[in-house]
């Protein structure tokens, strides 16, 4: 990631999960890192948008 805070700036729980993902897959998906960083500011709401776009009725 271009911003180091997105590699190492997360809270302990997501950081632990990311370490596991990193060890298993060898990389960390960028969108996951962005959406998990300071979730109350952006990620929580953006995830809701994605959920609505992908899962809810299109009508």
């Amino acid at each position, binding site marked *: 990631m*271009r*911003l*180091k*805070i*997105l590699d190492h*700036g997360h809270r302990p729980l997501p950081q632990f999960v990311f370490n596991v993902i990193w060890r298993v897959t060898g990389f960390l998906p960028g969108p996951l890192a962005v959406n998990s*960083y*300071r979730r*109350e*500011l*952006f990620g*929580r*709401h*953006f995830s*809701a*948008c994605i*959920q*609505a*776009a992908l899962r*809810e009725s299109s009508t």
Partner: protein
Amino acid sequence: MLNQVRTLLGAFLGDKPNHGVTSPALRRAIEAQAAQLSRDDRATATVLNARSAQLRRTIEAQAAQINQADSPPASASSFSVPTALEAYIRKVTLHADKVTDNDIEALKQAGYSEDELFEITISAAIGAARTRLNVGLAALSIEEDIHAS
């Protein structure tokens, strides 16, 4: 879906200073500038594969109208974006794939922290995405009108 978008806009661009390290006014100004850049970008309409120039013009007009109704309060537009950020916002809005480490380094040299750059980038991305969403929705409503008539 639109409700979720409104919640996102309200949470990220709202008047809650504790939500970010940058000021809400700066975030709104960046978002508005990116939205404007997106609107000006002719490729936005072309990407929609509009079938005629007339249709493209109609879509753009509708999108502009939607954006106007959906735009941040006047106080946001009175806040100007710092010059140092303008090129970066343009790049994130129109050519996000061309952002490089050098762009980030230059902004850090200019005194922006990583947290500020995170918020600036998200603000620009939201502005660009909002315009493209509105253009897409306008295109859909035109399609429905065409089928109905």
